[in-house]
């Protein structure tokens, strides 16, 4: 088992390194002269070549790929994200401030999603193929087809504009978080319903269950001790994926609702070609993804030792 975890960790390290290189390559190869773009964004004017060269040197764009890579990677490993190319302020505090808006939103969305999907999935699977089950699948399919930003807009239209019940833009009050969280939660609920439902159905289909029942094990005990753990495996794996995508969804939703979270942070940074900001977000999200996948991977192998044997 130690070797299994070791293998997983090695993979994670390789993947993280690859991620770092890819991110850097992306920034490096962005067309147009990044130094010029940064300078223009910073000084808001057309500038002489001297100033542009100065910016280029400052941001470290005048060396070779691998030198620049190590120069770039070093501080990152110390979690030093440097300074904004546009505002000159340190990146981390601004990034952290943005995160304080995004992470709670993601969690709220997850909570709402779970609160909706778990009961629905359990109820639906009580009678597979029955009316509730088919309705649940239909709703979930529909939900998966609705883009989060459209849903958000519709909710704004309904609750903020027409009914005037809830605030829409910005993040001034906690009430401002309701619509974004609900938008996110509904989307998450749609996918989670399908995942949990199929997990339960698959676990129910295990061949040894009828034997257990014949031996007289009570229905509740069967559900608790045999169906639930087995259903947990695919559910947790896909859940891990969902968590990562939750972050993505939160990012989109924030842009719609004008919240000052990672979404707006990223979009502004890209438009202004503020590389330190952009890379901070990319590295952060990639890190979250890899860590979440790592955690589910380990959890998955702990629960079911068979799994490790089949890869590589």
């Amino acid at each position, binding site marked *: 088992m130690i070797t299994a975890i070791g293998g997983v960790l090695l993979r994670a390290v390789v993947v993280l390194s690859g991620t770092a290189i890819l991110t850097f390559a992306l920034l490096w190869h962005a067309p147009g002269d990044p130094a010029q773009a940064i300078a223009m964004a910073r000084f808001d004017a057309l500038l002489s070549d001297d100033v542009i060269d100065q910016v280029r040197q400052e941001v470290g764009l005048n060396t070779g790929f691998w030198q620049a890579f190590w120069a770039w990677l070093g501080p990152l490993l110390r979690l030093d994200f440097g300074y904004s190319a546009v505002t000159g302020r340190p990146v981390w505090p601004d990034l952290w401030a943005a995160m304080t808006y995004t992470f709670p939103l993601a969690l709220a969305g997850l909570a709402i999603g779970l609160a909706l999907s778990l009961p629905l999935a359990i109820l639906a699977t009580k009678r597979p193929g029955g009316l509730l089950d088919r309705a649940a699948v239909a709703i979930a399919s529909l939900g998966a087809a609705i883009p989060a930003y459209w849903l958000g*807009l519709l909710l704004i239209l309904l609750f903020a504009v027409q009914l005037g019940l809830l605030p829409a833009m910005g993040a001034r009050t906690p009430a401002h978080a309701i619509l974004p969280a609900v938008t996110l939660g509904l989307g998450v609920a749609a996918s989670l319903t399908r995942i949990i439902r199929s997990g339960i159905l698959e676990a129910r289909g295990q061949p040894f269950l009828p034997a257990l029942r014949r031996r007289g094990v009570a229905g509740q005990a069967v559900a608790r001790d045999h169906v639930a753990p087995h259903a947990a495996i695919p559910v947790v794996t896909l859940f891990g994926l969902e968590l990562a995508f939750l972050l993505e969804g939160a990012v989109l939703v924030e842009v719609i609702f004008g919240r000052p979270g990672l979404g707006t942070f990223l979009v502004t940074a890209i438009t202004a070609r503020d590389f330190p900001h952009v890379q901070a977000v990319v590295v952060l999200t990639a890190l979250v993804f890899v860590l979440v996948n790592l955690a589910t991977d380990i959890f998955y192998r702990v629960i079911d030792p068979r799994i490790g044997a089949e890869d590589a």
Partner: protein
Amino acid sequence: MRSVALVVTGLVALAVLGPLLAPYDPTAIDIPNRLSGPTQTFPLGTDALGRDILSRLLYGARWSLGLAFLISVLSLIIGTSVGLIAALGGRIADWSLMRATDTFLAFPELVAAVVIAGLMGAGTWSLIFALSVTGWMRYARVARGIGLSVQSRGYVVQARLAGMPGWSIARWHYLPSLIPSLTVVWTGMFARAILGISALGFLGFGVQPPNPEWGAMLLDARVHMRSTPLQMIWPGLAVVSCVLAINLAGDALRDALAKDGQPG
């Protein structure tokens, strides 16, 4: 399979023929009639520049659907090649290609696409590049899995012994096993591409004006949410119905395959 083919043909037909059905030029500006609700002359109303929304929707199919088709096929080709090379190319190729796949998977698709499209300069080509580069991984995993399982089958060994050339073995012995599963993945990716294109369009990073892409239309409509809320409904509905149709067809295919117990 049949429902998938049906849905896809329908959507592709829409993308190709849609413009023929459009009553107006989607870029024709008509300021006096701007922001009108549904009327006789403009069945779905007009946008802020007086352009007919129905026409824009129909032309938009080319962008939102056509591009999605292109992108999903591109990533299919890339991903399947990677997966097959991993399956057939030996242990080292397998390990390194799968780690590369993991690396690409580590990037949240949409965020990465936004960053790529944004940094490369907003536009159609960056869109295609961004979404293709972030979309091939699922194919690779599936292709590798199937490739590995087919590789050890009796008839493949026999074909190799008989001296059949590699491409012939791939065509006759691997393809029949690959096609069903890859199609299921492809439907999901096609839907994802539609959502991705419109998301990027909505953020302003995708297809640029005056091209009538559905997500971009939503972006335009948002500004006038209070005056003409209906404008917001149509592009969203278009996206939802297309994605739903594809997802349902894909589900039906997946269920049918599960019943057969995966032919081949």
